[in-house]
């Protein structure tokens, strides 16, 4: 029974098998890459605020570190399963590989729900986690980062414990730290800008003048805002934005055919990323239903909000003029929608590549930490541009050459690079 049901690790393996087949990988390479190289399971006893002791389960999975130290987040989740962590660690390997940064893939977590824990108890969990695995992680072995329900505070607790144990300062042990405590500038912009760098390259390749394009964006959070800023700066015209309205508990699309004014909209945006619809109307925006963003007559769609937004139900409503989809969100397109998009010849920059600006910036954070020398923001963004540009070119070139769908090409290139690395090291 259990084996029949949805299992994220089985799914990740199936996806790998498919690509491995295309790459015609040797059996040994497949066997190695299908499984994590190392898994750590351990317990973390914590004295709770009420004096009782509770024992939490911790994990760290290092899927592959052939290309460099493992990299991946630490999740605090009450129903964490090892299969979920395995799947995510494998995806991290591919993700680092697709942008060609010298890092491998890892993931970890603790089975707990921070909602039911005090800050002190969470600190004890973080420190306990590090104590259990301090010898097997580090700047040159495995570099954790924030993930589900963990944030920069947790990273600082972990870093402090690590540095205490190893008697020194090792800021490169962990990423996602606040600026001034070993964090990198440019982190806020990284994902949104990275998205537009790849879009810019895609347009260039299709010989489309960006200043003659228009786009419709779903979402108005951090990623969307920075993407719009850069796209606008490069001459593009955003005509519609869909975002959540906190008071009406629904989303609306704000449209101005002559192009939206980012600054004007930011001035009437609340902290939830919601735009004041009355003020928007006064400023000449049409307020349309939330899913109208998808139906706009534009060249580019940028889903930068939630997953599964382009699905079986609405993929047919995409305007025929749309030629590009740049996936800013994670998994915004369902497999069924992919089929429709493929059929209509729309060029997709897959999430995996398009939103890799975040992990690239984490890599920069680690590099800066290891040097103990921190770059100006512009340096970070310039380096990000060149990384994203070459990553895109490589994927797109392969897609063209092998006539692959972009999503497949991205996987192929990522897995191939890792396969090359394990072979070069003669592990198999």
């Amino acid at each position, binding site marked *: 029974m259990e084996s029949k049901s949805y299992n994220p690790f089985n799914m990740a393996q199936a996806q790998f098998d498919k690509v491995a087949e295309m790459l015609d990988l040797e059996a040994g390479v497949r066997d190695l890459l299908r499984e994590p190289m190392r898994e750590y399971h351990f317990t973390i006893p914590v004295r709770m605020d009420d004096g009782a002791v509770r024992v939490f389960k911790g994990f760290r999975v290092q899927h592959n570190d052939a290309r460099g130290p493992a990299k991946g987040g630490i999740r605090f989740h009450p129903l964490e399963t090892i299969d979920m962590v395995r799947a995510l660690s494998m995806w991290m390997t591919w993700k680092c590989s697709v942008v060609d940064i010298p890092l491998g893939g890892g993931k970890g977590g603790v089975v707990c729900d921070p*909602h039911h824990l005090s*800050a002190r108890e969470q600190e004890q969990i973080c420190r306990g986690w590090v104590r259990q695995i301090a010898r097997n992680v580090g700047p040159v072995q495995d570099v954790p980062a924030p993930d589900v329900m963990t944030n920069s505070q947790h990273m600082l607790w972990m870093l402090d414990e690590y540095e205490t144990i190893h008697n020194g300062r090792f800021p490169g042990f962990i990423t996602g730290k*606040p600026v001034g405590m070993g964090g990198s500038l440019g982190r806020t912009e990284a994902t949104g800008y990275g998205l537009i760098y790849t879009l810019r390259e895609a347009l260039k390749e299709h010989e489309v003048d960006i200043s003659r394009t228009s786009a419709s964006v779903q979402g108005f959070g951090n990623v969307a805002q920075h993407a719009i800023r850069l796209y606008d700066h490069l001459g593009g015209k955003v005509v519609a934005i869909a975002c959540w309205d906190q008071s009406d508990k629904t989303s609306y699309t704000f449209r101005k055919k002559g192009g939206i004014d980012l600054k004007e909209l930011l001035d009437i945006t609340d902290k939830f990323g919601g735009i004041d619809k009355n003020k928007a109307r006064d400023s000449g925006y049409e307020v349309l239903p939330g899913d109208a963003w998808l139906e706009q007559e534009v060249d580019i769609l940028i889903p930068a909000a939630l997953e*599964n937004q382009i699905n079986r139900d609405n993929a047919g409503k995409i305007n025929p003029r749309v030629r590009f989809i740049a996936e800013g969100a994670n998994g915004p397109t369902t497999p069924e929608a992919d089929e429709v998009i493929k059929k209509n010849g729309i060029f997709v920059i897959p999430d995996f590549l398009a939103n890799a600006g975040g992990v690239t910036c984490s890599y920069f954070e680690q590099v800066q930490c290891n040097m103990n020398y921190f770059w100006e923001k512009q340096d970070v963004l310039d380096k990000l541009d060149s990384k994203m540009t070459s990553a895109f070119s490589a994927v797109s070139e392969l897609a063209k050459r092998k006539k692959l769908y972009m999503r497949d090409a991205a996987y192929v290139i990522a897995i191939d690079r890792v396969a090359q690395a394990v072979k070069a090291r003669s592990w198999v």
Partner: protein
Amino acid sequence: MEPKNLPTDQVLVVLRERAKELNCLYQVEEVLAGEEVPLPGIFNALIRTIPSGWQYPDICRARIVYRDQSYQDEDYVPTAWRDSAEIREEDELVGSLEVSYTREVPGVDDGFFLLKERKLIKTIADRIGQTIFHRKLKRLLHEWETASRDLAEKKNREWMVITELVRRTDEKLYLHISRKMIYYLFWNGVGEARQFLGKFGGEFVKNEPEPEFDANSPSFKQSREKLIEISDQVFSIAARNLSDNEILQCLQKWIHENKISFLIKTIDSGGTALSAIIDAILRYRAIAGDRMVLAPSTEKWLRVSLIRRFFSDTIEFINIAKRHLEVSDFFDLVTRIIFHAGSNGKLGGKSSGLLLARHILLKQPDEEGLFAGIKVPRTWYITADSISEFLRHNDLEDINEQKYKDPEQVRIDYPNIIQLFKNSHFSSEIVKGLSMALDDFGDKPIIVRSSSLLEDRVGTAFSGKYKSLFLANQGPKQKRLSALLDAIAEVYASVFGPDPIIYRAEQGLLDLHEEMGIMIQEVVGTRVGPYFFPAFAGIAFSNNEFRWSPRLRREDGLIRMVPGMGTRAVDRVSNDYPVLVSPGQPALRVNVSPDEIRHYSPSWIDVINLETNCFETISVIDLLRTYGEEIPAVHQIVSIYRDGHISRPSGFDIDFKSGDLLVTFEGIITRTTFIRRVRSILTALENGFGMPVDIEFASDGVDFYLLQCRPQNTGEDSAPSPIPRDIPEDRTLFTARRYISGGRVPDITHVVWVNPRKYGEMESLEMLTDVGRAIGRLNAVLPKRQFILMGPGRWGSRGDIKLGVQVSYSDINNTAVLIEISMKRGTYSPELSFGTHFFQDLAETGIRYIPLYPDDRDVVYNELFFTGSRNMLPDILPEYAHIADTLKVIDIPGRMGGKILKILLNAELGESIGYFDEPEAAAESSIVRPRPHEAHGEEYWRWRLHMAEQIAGQVDASRFGVRAVYLIGSTANATAGPDSDIDLLFHVDGTREQREALSVWLEGWSLSLSEMNYLRTGYRSHGLLDVHMVTDRDIENRTSFAVKINAVTDPARPLSMKRPAS
């Protein structure tokens, strides 16, 4: 004679005379206040002062006769032009005051003295008498004390010194104590006393001594001397039978009791005017000061009398209050009561609760210093019966019948009543009192709160039903006074507003007499820019009915706090959130990740604008940007959000201009004693009141102020519901016994159930996400708040989708209850989320959360009902038919023969049950108290049905191309409440133009019905109709609402039309 009837020069004369009189009185008071000056000195000073108050002071002379001594100027001659008044000490005539003109003066007012002058001489004489009496008491007390001190040193039968002293100075008292003594001896079985009583009993005991002003009657004089003699014998008996110490103690007690007997006599007599009581209390304070001078039983009697008089007759309240209040606690109170002549003095529930709470806290042992700093804002009170006086005064008594009118009429009348009240007049006593109050408040903003008599009834929840009004209280006094009168009139009017009347009707309180006291309280806060507001304020509960973690216990309590005025914490406001803390476990927060903290931090703040004199709601961030530096304790209130990291600001260096500032109260919570203090207060008050309480508080950034305290009102929607024990298992859907809050959800028509086992077995991510998406669609289609969602694990789980259905708040915001099912997998049960992903949204909208543990012993989980019922999902959402195995929609009335699902929750028992029952509109339920819209439940849907029939009957079928009209939803299945839509389904076959015309026609209906519904129920909506149109093709394809036509369950109900289109 009134000045306005006189010519101008005369007016001046009269005014001058009055000024003179007043001046004279002030001087007299000043002389009398000279406590060290012996009486003759006082009298000599007075005779020099008094003439200045008379019309012709130069020729006016005064004389005081006291106990046969005369005090007068040398040239005093009693002429024909004189006036006099008696001087009395208590009831004894002791002398007189005279004024006399040395020569003739012009006659006025039927004599030679003005009316005012005649009054003045009496007033002065009275004051002299009172002063003499007061001095005598003081002297006695002093002598007594000296005597006791001496005794303590000598220990030698010296109580005799006392009796001797009393015998000499106060015969009345001497008789009193000797009588007490003989009883005392008698009760103690002293034989001599029995004989004594047998001998002299008749004359000694029964014979009340005559009043002393008859002292010149010779016959009485004899009997008095005899009585004194007998009394002397009593003490001889005492001396033989009791120890010196015992006698001394008795004497001490009785003498003191006698001194304050006037107070008891005054208060115990029900008919005494309030002014007399207040006078008596003040006199008592003057005598007793802070000393305890009464026997415990007498004190208790007095205490209860006072409590009954000012607070409440209810035995519950008296029982609590008498344990905590002392007579001296009334001293400050009585000087701040505003009342009309003849007022009975009741202050109302809110005032009583606050005063009681304050004194409970004052009497707490305070080792940690947590109670020391607690303040209560300066408060004045208007007695509750003043509203009746107000009505009488303005001939408005007819208005009392308002409560028996139709709710509709009440609502229409209400705005007029407000205006009428505002244009009415208050009696001069009230206006004078308020004027004094305003002088006391100065130009501090004030709040006028209602304090109703019905509010102190345990179990009624009048919070928010009556008005509270804020006043900026700025500008000239006349303007401030008229604003205050206006506000009181408006609060009075709110007694006749629709909401309280409907609420009282539903609670069966309509026939009880309602009166409304008023509390006028200084608003806590400071001025910041043009605004005035407290640094923070809120409400705290002994019991936490909204637990977001299983680790929280109910008794850990709950604090809802906001920046600025507490209004935003007391009421639920949409689009904004108060900060929630559980004082028992402050480290367990609702919001954990920086994003959650940011999302749920308060965005708005209520303030008083001192420049516009308005109560305003402004943006927190705008306020911080402009006036951040000036806000008290701001560094304890805000945190800084930067790059996903939240930190407390360091010291005072906050970047108000561009920092991303959030209100978190982190500093207040972690770095001050605030949380511990609230917890101690709640514990102390819960113990004191003997039941859970809720309090309102505010802080100006320095001090903690208690604003209100009452038995915990969990609100109508979360009061514990009695759990019926006799429901057979086949009529039970589930029972639960863990982490239950209070409340009831009575009319569920649909259950949406995610089969935990099948969900776990789903193979593809696509199908799993489809479950969430389908639920989002169902949320929009199913009748609002009449369906429940039940699913495995954690609703809204982020991360692993297998752990719970992936939904956002908008996908579930119409459900009545969110249920998480923790099915055992192998040996462990998955941990549930407690709705944490959108906890505050659930809490603010009143959506219930229930965790189910079907594998526990002693609980019911009727799996057969779920698996054995027909699934409506494929009918409603054919596009999701492929997940029908996992996701079930069950139509309860369809399945259970018209029954609906009723869910009752009881936090006291920690139990909940969901069972099938007749709809309450049809079957009068005796188990539970009706909720607001069930009392008239029938009425709501009948009216809607009638209106729907009217619409169908009047629609011009050929003009609009209408084939048929159907009724669906809550009106069709007779569950409509006061806020329900009328759902109509139109089968149309016309052109687009016809459909548009129909929409316009219906829009008119919709808005009119909405207005009518508002008048009937008070629920505002933008249009009452929810119209769906379907075509032949929809019916053929069975898309959307067309499935309802001829459906098996919950079918659309056809309405008859005037003339269907052919």
